């Protein structure tokens, strides 16, 4: 079942003098349960493509359909609701809410979605358990290591059961051990919850685990390979 469809999408930036085609006619689709990485050199358009899929940015041309929604037809406030309902974001620099505890951060999107309190607490506990941070549920982000913060961010993204997770360089700021632990967790959640993960990364550790590797160069897809790696 297709979760994301990208049809001949372009994204052009107009700098002062030069026109930059960050995404140049990309056509792709992602299936439920994909564990895909988008790789490519700096400036190849990885992050831009992720932003377009997540509805953070609008394409100059082409069409993106996510969970049956044509993103170009949604108004800005509808796009925000769309992201809340269907997309989970994991950012390179964790981006937790500093004044909330780990469990409040994990439950944050669910509270935006107005989940009943009991269900929200149960799901928060379950997610913190999954990422191995049940004992740190009262800690604030500043009291957690980088790896722990990113695990909380993954739990936050996954907790409301979105259609897919967009992770932009999730391991870039982590040491090897923390990165491996995080990838183990994401693989486990991908397997257990059949959650779709789409990464953009430079990190070979992530690429090594991916079951699909999409390579971008100058905004174009130059390869899209299914690997034999089986988590």
């Amino acid at each position, binding site marked *: 079942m297709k979760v994301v469809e990208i049809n001949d999408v372009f994204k052009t930036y107009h700098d002062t003098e030069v026109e930059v085609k960050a995404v140049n006619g990309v056509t792709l689709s992602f299936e439920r349960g994909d564990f895909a990485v988008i790789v490519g050199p700096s400036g190849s358009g990885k992050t831009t493509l992720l932003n377009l899929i997540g509805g953070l940015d609008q394409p100059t041309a082409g069409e993106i359909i996510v969970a049956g929604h044509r993103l170009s037809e949604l108004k800005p406030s509808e796009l925000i609701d769309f*992201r809340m309902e269907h997309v989970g974001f994991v950012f390179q620099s964790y981006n937790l809410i500093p*004044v909330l505890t780990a469990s409040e951060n994990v439950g944050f999107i669910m509270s935006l979605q107005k989940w009943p309190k009991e269900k929200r607490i149960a799901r928060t506990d379950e997610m913190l358990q999954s990422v191995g941070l049940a004992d740190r549920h009262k800690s604030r982000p500043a009291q957690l290591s980088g790896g722990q913060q990113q695990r909380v961010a993954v739990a936050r993204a996954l907790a409301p059961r979105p259609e897919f997770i967009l992770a932009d360089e999730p391991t870039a700021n982590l040491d090897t051990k923390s990165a491996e632990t995080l990838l183990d967790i994401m693989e486990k959640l991908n397997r257990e919850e059949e959650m779709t993960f789409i990464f953009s990364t430079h990190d070979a550790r992530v690429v090594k685990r991916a079951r699909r590797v999409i390579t971008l160069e100058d905004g174009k897809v130059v390869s899209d390979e299914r690997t034999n790696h089986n988590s």
Partner: protein
Amino acid sequence: MKNYQLAWRNLWRNKRRTLITAASVFFAVFFALVMRSFQLGTYEKMYRDVIESYSGYLQLQHSDYLDESNLDNGFVLEQPLTDIIESDPNVTGVIPKLESFALAASGSRTQGVMVIGMDPDNEQKTLNIKNRLIKYRLTPDATEALKEEKLPARTAKLVDVFSGEAWTDEKSLISDLGISDDDSAAVMPLFRKHASLDSRYLTSADSGSAVIGYGLSRYLSADVGDTLVVMGQGYHGVSAAGLFVIKGIVSMPNPEIDNAFVYITLADAQYLYAASGMVTSAIISISDTDDKELLQTQQRLAASCNSGLVIRNWKEMNALLLNQMEADNKSGAIMIGILYLVIAFGVFGTVLMMMAERRREFGMLVSIGMQKRKLAGIVGMEMLFIGLLGVVAGVAASLPVVYYGYARPLRFTGEMAKMYEEYGFEPVMPMLLPDTYYLWQAVIVLLILLIAITFSVRRIFKLNIINALRA
């Protein structure tokens, strides 16, 4: 988590900045309230003093009397007109008054004075001149005599500071001279011996007696029991001359009045000025002195006046004082305006810093699904909390100061006092108890916050998520 809980926690993520901003609001509110309380308290005192000791709230006058205040613009107050005025539901009495100028002399000194003739028994219903009778005063002789006595150190020092001052009651003397309850029993007999004054008030039967202002008594070196020679021009140019024994000395709040105040009975004044049966005005005492009711009473009474006579309210009679106060009020408002302008920049600086520091966080919140209006609401609440912290603390801190300043008005001495008196004001600054001006300070701070909130809300609604996430 509720929005207000998130806003409250956000407030304390940068404690120092929050406290500095709240403190700037606190100081602005505190100083504005204290300044305003002093200003309004002083105005109210001046108005009240003029009304209660001189003009009353309403007066019946000849229409030309306001521009040319002389005996030729006097009139005969007919009993039927008095009856009509007294029948008004808001009127409690009519006090005929004959007022003119003269020269007063005692010993070798002469001074231009304002001779006021009223019926003392009737006058006491409206004016409070009787309460201004001096009971104690620190003449140079009294000061020296007291210094010879064994006084507590603080009181001895204050006797020097307050030399020349007078008191109408024992309580304020004890308070001003720092006489403690323990010392009172030993010290007060000394004051009664050296500084008390047997000052008495007029009665309607007191022909040939006068009550004079303390300022005038000091200038003329005239005391109770001395004779005052009064000479002037009577009705239609008749010469006026009379001798009056000083029966009492009063401390009038307005120094200009205090330095020229000679109060005799109405009958004596009519005889002195050869203006039999005449008055220059009639003070109309009223029960409800509220501005609206005052004007309505004035309108009702004006309809029943004979031709040539008018009813004037205290504001019309004291236009100069009102203008002076209005000009002072404007300068005070400018000062407070500058104070709030500084605060507005402080608050605005905080908003700018906060918006810049949290740009990425805002981008993240909107990208994970928080609507911009909700985010704007939380940020608005944060600003509101900071403002409320400052306002509540400022109001709370100002209350004891204002109540103390009301109960114990600031009294200037020395050069400052002289400067006040030269401008015709009593050197006293009382404070006004909390009133609508408190509400206005809160409204002003809320307006400043509203501008800051509008700015932050605008920035949030214009937030570009991609750029914000890169911040």
